[in-house]
């Protein structure tokens, strides 16, 4: 049973616009910072490739969050043979997987 927000669309924008304005400016600042360091780097780092695809998904209507979660996830279903590292990195390197296959 869904429990939709009691807020109207205008109330949602009134309530959440400023904090999300802040977030989008932070993303823009991060991308500019990276470009200042090396404008070609984002195209070589799998995390930034996934990030760029996620940004494109933001412009499409409907289920943006679900699409982005999947863009950042490991879609495989076979356990690893052995432990490679302890921690997750935030994005799945499907580009190197594709290159290997």
């Amino acid at each position, binding site marked *: 049973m869904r429990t939709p927000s009691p807020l109207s669309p205008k109330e949602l924008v009134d309530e959440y616009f400023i904090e999300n304005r802040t977030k989008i400016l932070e993303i823009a600042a991060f991308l500019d910072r990276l470009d200042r360091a090396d404008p070609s780097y984002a195209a070589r780092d799998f995390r930034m490739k996934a990030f760029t695809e996620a940004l494109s998904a933001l412009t499409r209507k409907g289920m943006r969050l679900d699409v982005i979660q999947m863009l950042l996830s490991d879609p495989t279903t076979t*356990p690893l043979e052995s432990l490679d590292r302890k921690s997750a990195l935030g994005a799945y390197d499907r580009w190197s997987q594709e290159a290997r296959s």
Partner: protein
Amino acid sequence: MRYIDHHAHMVSRTTDDYQQMSLSGCVAVTEPAFWAGWDRSRAEGFEDYFRQLTDFEPKRAAQFHIQHYAWMAMNPKESDDRELSREVLKRIPKFLDKPTVLGIGEIGLNRVTKNEVDTYTEQVELALAHKQLILIHTPHLEDKLKGTKISVEVLRSFPTLEPGRVLVDHAEEHTLEMILDQGYWAGLTLYPQTKVSAQRAADIVERFGPDRICIAGACDWGPSDPLAVPRFIMEMRRRKHTEELIHRLVFENPVQFLSQSGRFKIRPGVEVEASVR
């Protein structure tokens, strides 16, 4: 509003945190066994940790009128070490008789290795053999989808396992349905960065409803917030959701799940007080 935090690693927190939690309405916490941030060298270290969870921590919490319960397990981060895991698992049964132990947890997968799956499967078997509730950790970030899928597959391979006695924790938008559809409980854990925010947790409730969903802070030694559940309450109020809905998520739902252990009992008077608000 009174609330229960079903996932809080209080051994990593200060007494000031207990005080703040108590002041903000926390009446009970449950603490799953977890990774200390570094790998322990021998099983005896786990045994001391389990004693801390079952002997010391309940007393520390009681100073602030918070009931403290615990879960016993070999945590996912160290579970790839099969030899160590076998030794730790041998030591768990004697703690299952402690009056504040609710079940086996948090078990599950980290990087989703074959060894981790084997240790996880053995711990599900252990829970079934001892008729224990199960609390499952699901992996972080890009590993969550794959890890949750395999965790659920393993659970489904045990036909005698009652889904309603399992809570799959750290659920997010892309894993929630596969958990709820199989009849398990789902936990939303509120983290500043690596899990869900209070806002996204409220969105998830709006999309999927409140059935079989519990909210926790999962505070630990990393960036995390012992007051995450009250912040979720504030977020729900900000959206003008009813007090009844919020109370169900932060009090009634965890009571319903945890009470299946037979050991989880809210202090007399608190439940009535919470329902009256």
